[in-house]
């Protein structure tokens, strides 16, 4: 990626075109940010960044009443989510500016997630000052709640089990050597007792998660894969205790400990992947602004934390502010942007009697609002809770669990047959030895490992391509998808207002007038001007009139910008002569390519929209979608998904709005767009973390690869079990053979899970060859250029995509 350093005609900070030489800034905000960075001695940022900085906006304040954690040593600390970080250098500069601020003792911004941890001396500085610094740099801090603590116990269990497995293996190797060269009984005793002492915590404590899983499965009435595992652990350990005490026979304790260690490793990897996906989803969830302005009894106004607002309170909300609570408009007019809750990108007019949602943005106007819900009951808070709960839901029955009952039944059957067969034909002593051998080799270690490992690798591969899936179930459903339904607004289209048609000269004047406005139309105009490289002129006497338009002087002449009907803005000059700028929702650049690839990969694509026929027809034609349906209500969308499923299809639905919620929940795999409403992210099985639709294609490929590997591995491990159980029943298995066979079968599974990423790449490579000459549109292009994740790292979800959520173009 090219470096973004200073050049003439561009703002040195944000890269917007300006009239002037080097070091002419587009606005005071950029100049302030530039000075802060220079002042901290961090000008290296400008040589190393890979993307221009976002243009700083005004801080909305309210940081002084935020709850901060007071540490034992008298310092204060807080956790923030920093939005708008675009590249590694952004993270670097934010972290270092904070570190060099007075009174800051610790500042840490994660490159992977954009989360920040701050600790400071309250005697020297305070949170408002630090938040303002982040704001002044152009990034947007948000307060994060309590951190979900990773499960450290599982890691300790894995560590202990691995240590024990290695040592018991060593002792067992000596015992095996003793078979051949002879061994004094006291050494045999020593090795057995030491092995038992080591294996005891493994069987009783390290294996506890499997017991818990088996039990919770039983309680809810299904046989979990953990059940045969628990059974094997219990039998092996009991047998080991008996052998050690009696001083006769073979203990198989090396197999036991190795088994637990391998299974725990699978669990740790799986949990890591799941936690990353859950964190990414939580980062997307919005939070209420810190404070609200409440009318007091005496007619005055006070600023209070939004947590203290109660139903019945009257609050004032001004232009550019977020609503601090859910409520009903009592007086005033304004325009609200509710994309967060409803996914609707167009601002809507508000008047008395209408409902408003906390955390949505009042674009212009001024309102008096009566609060209807306390903060913790507000729509956004409930969404955030839902996300957290969805993240740690209990495991559902999986395909491995469907095999589990058969597996357990078959094992027990063969074991009984072995016991009786040997007992009756040969003798009960040998019968017991053979039966134990059957139970040992029948432990479904490889089978139980095949799914979590391949799924973790598949989730990682999908996430590297921009699709963050909630869990392995969603991944496997995605692999089976054979029908695709797409929402129009915000999914096939970008969902944001964009300039479709305007002359350069018109755009230049309009952008000059709109330069400092936060209105979506204004932003679209300024963005288009910047993209076309048009230097922004300085406007004077700019006056914004809510609901009417904006006026001011550019190049000495007076201009007025006003609405000219839906999707059209008129620029009117002094002589009342007007030119038009057409705006609209543009189709995503990669939509047509994604649609054709999805049709080849995952079956017919259907476009569903609540919009009217003409728009639907235009978008469908542009995206190359054959079938489309328009004018659909949310329920109709869900109903249509249901009818596709009734026809035997496994449906992938991608959408972004509140109105897509029912369909997202109904679909086998519902995928929400990260730019969409938080509510849609809540019900969805996955989130497209990047701004590119091609994440869907990458996700389907990753899911297919993972599913294939899982299928092959399940067949392999079942074949292994059949052969090994057969050998054991015939009395040909001894502890040494078991100790070699079992880890080998598991390692084969581990090795093939690592090939998921390679498989996906091969598929992509095949496609590229087929369309040689066309550009590579994979969604995986790392924003950090080259700072990727090593291929095949099972469970390593990508930071490059995890940072994208909340990363809209400012």
């Amino acid at each position: 990626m090219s470096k973004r350093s200073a050049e003439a005609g561009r703002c040195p900070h944000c890269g917007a075109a300006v009239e002037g030489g080097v070091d002419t800034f587009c606005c005071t905000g950029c100049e302030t940010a530039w000075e802060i960075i220079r002042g901290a001695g961090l000008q290296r940022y400008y040589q190393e960044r890979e993307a221009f900085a976002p243009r700083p906006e005004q801080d909305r304040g309210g940081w002084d009443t935020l709850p901060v954690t007071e540490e034992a040593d008298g310092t204060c600390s807080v956790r923030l989510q920093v939005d708008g970080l675009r590249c590694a250098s952004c993270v670097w500069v934010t972290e270092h500016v904070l570190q060099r601020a007075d009174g800051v003792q610790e500042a840490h911004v994660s490159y992977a997630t954009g989360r920040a941890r701050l600790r400071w001396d309250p005697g020297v500085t305070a949170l408002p000052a630090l938040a303002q610094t982040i704001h002044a740099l152009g990034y947007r801090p948000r307060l994060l709640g309590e951190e979900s603590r990773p499960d450290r116990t599982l890691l300790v269990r894995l560590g202990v089990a691995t240590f024990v497995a290695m040592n018991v293996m060593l002792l067992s190797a000596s015992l095996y050597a003793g078979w051949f060269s002879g061994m004094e009984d006291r050494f045999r005793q020593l090795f057995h007792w030491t092995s038992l002492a080591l294996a005891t915590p493994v069987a009783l404590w390290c294996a506890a998660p499997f017991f818990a899983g088996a039990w919770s499965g039983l309680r809810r009435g299904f046989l979990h894969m953990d059940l045969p595992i628990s059974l094997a652990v219990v039998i092996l350990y009991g047998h080991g205790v008996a052998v050690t005490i009696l001083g006769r026979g073979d203990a198989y304790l090396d197999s036991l400990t190795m088994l637990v260690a391998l299974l725990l490793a699978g669990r740790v990897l799986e949990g890591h992947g799941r936690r990353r996906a859950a964190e990414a989803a939580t980062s997307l969830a919005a939070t209420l602004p810190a404070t609200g302005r409440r009318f007091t009894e005496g007619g005055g106004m006070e600023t209070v934390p939004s947590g203290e607002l109660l139903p019945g309170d009257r609050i004032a909300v001004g232009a550019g502010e977020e609503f601090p609570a859910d409520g009903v408009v009592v007086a005033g007019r304004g325009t609200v942007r509710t994309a967060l809750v409803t996914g609707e990108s167009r601002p809507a007019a508000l008047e008395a009697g209408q409902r408003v949602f906390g955390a949505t943005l009042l674009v212009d106007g001024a309102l008096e609002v009566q609060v209807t819900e306390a903060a913790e009951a507000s729509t956004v808070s409930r969404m955030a809770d839902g996300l957290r709960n969805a993240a740690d839901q209990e495991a559902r029955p999986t395909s491995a669990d469907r095999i589990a009952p058969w597996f357990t039944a078959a094992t027990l059957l063969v074991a009984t047959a072995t016991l009786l067969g040997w007992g009756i034909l040969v003798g009960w002593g040998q019968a017991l030895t053979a039966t134990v051998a059957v139970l040992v080799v029948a432990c479904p270690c490889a089978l139980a490992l095949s799914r979590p490992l391949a799924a973790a690798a598949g989730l990682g591969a999908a996430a590297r391509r921009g699709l963050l899936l909630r869990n392995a179930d969603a991944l496997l459903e995605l692999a089976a998808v054979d029908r695709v339904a797409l929402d129009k607004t915000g999914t096939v289209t970008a969902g944001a207002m964009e300039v479709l048609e305007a002359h350069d000269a018109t755009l230049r004047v309009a952008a000059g007038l709109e330069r400092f406005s936060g209105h979506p139309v204004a932003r679209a105009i300024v963005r288009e001007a910047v993209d076309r490289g048009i230097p922004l002129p300085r406007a004077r006497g700019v006056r914004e009139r809510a609901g009417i338009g904006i006026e001011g002087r550019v190049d000495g002449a007076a201009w007025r910008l006003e609405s000219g009907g839906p999707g059209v803005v008129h620029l009117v000059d002094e002589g009342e002569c007007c030119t038009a700028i057409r705006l609209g929702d543009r189709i995503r650049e990669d939509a047509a390519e994604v649609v054709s690839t999805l049709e080849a990969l995952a079956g017919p694509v259907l476009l569903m929209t609540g919009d009217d026929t003409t728009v639907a027809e235009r978008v469908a034609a542009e995206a190359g979608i054959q079938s489309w349906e328009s004018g659909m209500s949310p329920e109709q969308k869900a109903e249509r998904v249901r009818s596709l499923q009734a026809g035997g299809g496994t449906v992938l639905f991608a959408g972004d709005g509140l109105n897509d919620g029912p369909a997202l929940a109904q679909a086998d795999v519902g995928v929400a767009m990260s730019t969409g409403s938080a509510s849609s992210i809540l019900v969805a099985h996955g989130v497209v973390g990047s701004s590119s639709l091609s994440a869907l294609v990458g996700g389907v490929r990753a899911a297919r690869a993972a599913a294939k590997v899982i299928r092959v591995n399940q067949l392999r491990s079942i074949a292994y079990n059949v052969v090994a159980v057969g050998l054991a029943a015939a009395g040909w298995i001894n502890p040494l053979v078991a100790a070699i066979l079992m880890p080998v079968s598991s390692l084969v599974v581990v090795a093939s899970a690592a090939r998921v990423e390679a498989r996906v790449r091969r598929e992509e490579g095949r496609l590229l060859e087929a369309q040689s000459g066309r550009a590579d549109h994979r969604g995986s292009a790392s924003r950090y250029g080259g700072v990727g994740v090593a291929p095949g790292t099972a469970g390593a979800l990508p930071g490059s995509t995890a940072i994208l959520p909340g990363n809209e173009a400012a």
Partner: protein
Amino acid sequence: MNALIWLVPVAVALGGVFVGLFLLAVRGGQFDDLDDPPRRMLQDDD
């Protein structure tokens, strides 16, 4: 060979010390974030 009688327990105990160190590392949060430090490493700092 009699040395084994005490050598084996000593070896295990020694290994136990390292398990203890691992435990401390986990408690200290060394394994909580496995994604950020590898990226941080690539930022050559002053």
